[in-house]
Each structure stands twice: as C-alpha cells, then as structure tokens.
C-alpha cells in the first residue's frame, strides 16, 4: 500500500502526513487507543528503511494555487485536531488561507462552506452529485476515509475536484472488505479492527 502511494507521489501526486503515519514513525500520539496502537506497532514492524525515509519526507501540508491539503486541521497541522464542527472548520479555513481546503482525519464525508457572513456551514454531500464550488465562497472538504469509513456505510470514500469547472464530487465505492478483514485477522491484529470494516463503524 505504502509503496503504491510512494509511486503516485513520485509521479506528482500530493501526499501529506497523517497521524497514524507519524505514530508509525515513532512520534507519540496520546489520542490513539489500544487497538490503534496495536496497528501502529504492527505497521512499524513492516516498514523497511526506504518506506521510513518516504514517510519522514512527507510534509504536514501542501499548498498549491487555491488549494491547501492537510490531514487534520490547518490551524495546527501537527496536533491532529478533529474538524468536528463549524468552529473547527472556521479555524482550519482561516489558517489555510486558501479557497479550498482538503482534509481527512474525520472519517465522514463533509463539506463546509462560507457564505456572506463568513461563518462556515455544514453540508452532507450526496455521493455522485457534482457540487459547484465557486471562488466567491471558501470551502473545506473532508473527503472521508478510503480504508475505514465510519458512517455506517462500508463503502470506501473519495472525492474528485474538477479545476476546470470548479466543482467537487464526493464518491462512495464498494470494495472487498472481506479480504481486508481476513488480512487483519491473519496479521493477528485486534478483531475489532476487522469487524468495524464490515459495519462501517
């Protein structure tokens, strides 16, 4: 998986560091629970020098034109703040200084947008519907989790932004979570990590 991401990165894809990546590199993270720590320990054991080097090279944020990419909140990228409401969204949008902020960390697909008052409002996207996102507003898109969706739907999440037509589309795609569950169990990781994939929790 990591090698695949590295491949994409070498072809110009934007890759930013996430909290689990940082933890696997040995930076302590108090927010992680026992199960997550078990996964982190497993991951650490799998990493070779090349992968470590790749993870170490990852930036916390990438800013390009009107875009800012960050794993958690742009207000303090290394502190892994959850953008869980309009207040956190406002902080991230303000700190990001871009028209569009794309982030993850929160596993559900969400789109925050500001109107004339500047206060961000929450919209829950309808998968597959392209949303016009003009530059008159500021936008914070939480694209959702590809590997561990948590909204009760086990389909993986991703989003595409069309720079030409200025619109964002959120997607959900079914994937073989059964295979992922078998691999988790085969690796001897906590069963809960496998079970949650099936239920999307």
């Amino acid at each position, binding site marked *: 998986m990591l090698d695949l991401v590295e491949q994409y990165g070498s072809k110009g894809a934007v890759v930013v560091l996430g909290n689990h990546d940082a933890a696997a590199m040995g930076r302590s993270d108090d927010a992680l629970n026992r199960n997550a720590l078990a996964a982190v320990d497993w991951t650490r054991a799998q990493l070779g020098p090349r992968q470590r080097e790749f993870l170490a090279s990852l930036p916390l944020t990438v800013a390009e034109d009107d875009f800012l990419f960050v794993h958690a909140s742009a207000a303090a990228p290394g502190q892994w703040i959850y953008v869980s409401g309009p207040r956190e969204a406002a902080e991230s949008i303000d700190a990001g200084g871009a028209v569009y902020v794309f982030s993850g960390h929160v596993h559900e697909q969400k789109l925050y*947008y500001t109107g004339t008052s500047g206060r961000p409002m929450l919209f829950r996207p309808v998968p597959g519907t392209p949303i*016009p996102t003009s530059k*008159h507003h500021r936008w914070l898109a939480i694209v959702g989790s590809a590997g561990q969706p948590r909204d009760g739907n086990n389909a993986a999440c991703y989003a595409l932004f069309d720079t030409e037509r200025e619109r964002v589309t959120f997607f959900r795609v079914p994937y073989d979570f059964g295979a992922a569950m078998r691999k988790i169990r085969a690796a001897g990781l906590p069963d809960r990590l496998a079970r949650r994939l099936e239920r999307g929790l």
Partner: protein
Amino acid sequence: MTKLPETGSVIDGFRLGEMIHAGSMATIFRLTGDEGPLPLVMKIPRLGPGERAVNVIGFEVCRTVLGAVAQSRHHPTLVAYGDVETTPYLVMEHIDGVRLDDWLGRAPMPPEEIARLGTAMALALSDLHRQDVVHLDLKPTNVLFRSNGEAVLIDFGLAHHGHFPDLLAEELRIPLGNWVYMAPEQVLGVRCDPRSDIFALGGILYELATGRLPFGHPATVAELKRRFYRDPVPPRTLVPSTPPWLQEIVLRCLEVDARDRYASAREIALALSTPAEIPLTERGSRERRAGLPTLARRRIRAARFAPAPCPPPSTEPQVMRVVAVAISPQEVNEALRVALRDAARSAIAADPGCRIACITVVPPAATLSGVGEENSATGRHINRLIELRGWAKPLELPEERVTYHVLESDKPGAALVDYVRMNDVAHIVIGAPAAGTLPWRFGGAGAQVVGSAPCTVTVVRPRSEG
C-alpha cells in the same frame, strides 16, 4: 467595469433582443437569431458595485438548481450560463405564457377556475418537491401558465436544493423572499421545508378567491411575524359564494405549523381536482377569525414558535402512496369484488400509510339519457359513488385514507392510465375477466392498463373462477 448590456449587444455569441424585464436582481432579454429549437431569453444578474451580495449568490443558486433538476414542462430549461466572475448570465427557455399576476385583477375568480389554476400550480410544485427542491419564492409574478393550462415556475434565485450546499442558509437579518406569501418557518430562516411552498400556494389561492391578501403587506419584521398567531379572515366571510371545499383547502395550506398543512403538493392537486371528495373540517365552514381570548393565547405561544422539522428528503413519493383499485361498473360478480378487496388489504398491509383510490369508469354523461332521478346522469353518478363506498366499507379505513372517483370516459383503459399518470399512483389493482371468457373486463381496458400504466399493476382473478 464592462458596459451595461443592451438590445443589440452580443454576449458569448448570443445576440440580445428586446428587454422584457428589469428587476432589482436581474434584467432579462429575448435572444434573437435562430439558436435552436427553443425560443430563448438571457437573464443577466445585476452584479457590481453597489449591488447586493445576495444577487451573486442568487445567480449561483439559480444556475445550480436549474442545472440539476430534470428537464420538465414546469420550469424553464437552462441552456447555457456564463462565468460568475467575468460574464454572468443564464440562457433559458423563453416561456410563452400568461403571468399569474396579469389575472389578479379578475379576483375573486370563479371557484372552478381557481381549482384549475391551483391544480396546475400544485402539480408544478410537486414536480420540484419530489427532486428535493423547494422554490421558496412562490408568488404570482413567478408563475406562468402555458396555453395548455400547465403551470411553469420561474426564478429559482432563492430556491433550496437538498443535494447542494445551501448558499443562502445564513443567519439573515431580514427574511429573504416575498413577505406577502412567506411561510412562518421561512420567516425564521428554515429553508428545507417543501411545505413552505404549500403555504405560499395557499396565499395565492386566497388572493384568487377573495382579491385580498391573507396577511396584508407587512412592512416590518414584527408585522411579518403577526402570521404566527393572527389567522386570515375566512374567504367565505369576504366572498360568501366561496364553496366550503375551497376555503378548507386554502386555510389548510395556510396553517401556521407546517405539520397541519397538506403533507405534499400532490395531495393539494388531488383535493382541488376532486373537490366533492375532500373531507370538510371546521376550516371549511369557519365564519370569523379567532376571538380575542384565542388570539391572546396564540400570541403567547407564538413567542416560542418552533418550526416543524423539515421532512426527510426524497420522501414525497412515499407520502401517502396511492393504490388505485379499478372496480368495473355494473359489477355483479361478488367473488371478484371480494378478491379485489383482498388485494387492497394486501396492499394496505404492505404499506400501512397508503391511500386507496376506488375508481370506476362510466360512459360520459352526454350519452346517458334517462327519466327520473335515479336514471339522470347525476343520479347514476351518485349511485356509482354509493357502490364504491359499499365496496370499501369492509376495509375500515379512516376517511382521509380512501377516496372515490367516478371517471367519465368512453375509453376506460385510457381513463385509468391517465388517472394513474395524473395522480402519481404507485400501484393499480384491476380485475381479470373470468378465465376463458372474452372480451377482457373493461372491454380491453385491463390489457391497456397492464400495457401502459407507469406503475405496478396487479390483475386479480378469484380462485373459484379458475
């Protein structure tokens, strides 16, 4: 600053013709030249220094909503649009029709005409609502009627589409939209309730019926909020010839709490097109507004008015799903009547919220000639209704869950298919001819319904006939 567009200007290849509207938010031009199959207009928002920010957002909203709704006869088709930064415009179908406000001078109108216009408007609203769109600016200047009677809703600058972020959902200092027809919840900033459009429709029907506005012309927010507790003067008090059914429909649309109004525009279309069938309540016969004690009580309650939660999206088709049962006239086959009733029972068990529409088709009145009350056209019509009621009685459905319809037509099959289409029927139950007999019951109507009704069709045959 680009120069203002005028007749003769060319924008992105479109040549502007006559200016047909100059409003506070936009100007509208006819387009000249042969651009294609549709006559077109270009709407250019008033953007720029000194103009309101809401104009920009209204433009974006209009573009998003019109671009997303399915093409339909009930709103203009969006053909092209320009960039909001450089050349903002919308090119849309030009609707050749009469604007409702041109007819307001004729109010009070005859009830039959109000029913016709109201049905058309309700069907247009229903077409939007089933796509999770709420218009939120329904008023006579935003409704056009095509020459065939269909209503077209225009100006989606304040609309809400459930599939897109609502750019107008802000803590607005001043309620956005037309205050005359605005629903109470909309005054408080709720933008996701299709029943707000139903309130506005009620306001329009009130105006057509009485020539007066239900809540006057509020000039301040405080005056606007009087509708939270002050009920309108009953239409029958102003125009005594108003039938109770019309007053019932109008006042139900104008209920303060959205939950007390019709749940869907589709139900209003049905009520207006079958006025004799609607259950009348105290609303229909009300003669005066609420007295002082009631008013005082309501006013105290209004201070804590909490709008009803918006209904969940995409549910309108499920609100009162209609199951139609076609019961052929002169039905003598009791076994089939029982079998049809059993099929209706199954449908009710499968969807306890559904409405059963009992239908029978009779030849048009003109071909009926008879002597005496029971042989006259009206007499026979009434007899059919009694038969239908008799059939439905054992189902023991509450009054609002069952309706009776005597359709007059020479072509029963076509009449049933039309009924299914017009009323968004989800499921129709029809009787099969006895096995081995010809022709089909309804003279081939059954085959036609199976062949072309846009819904589920159940063909019922009693076991004993097998």
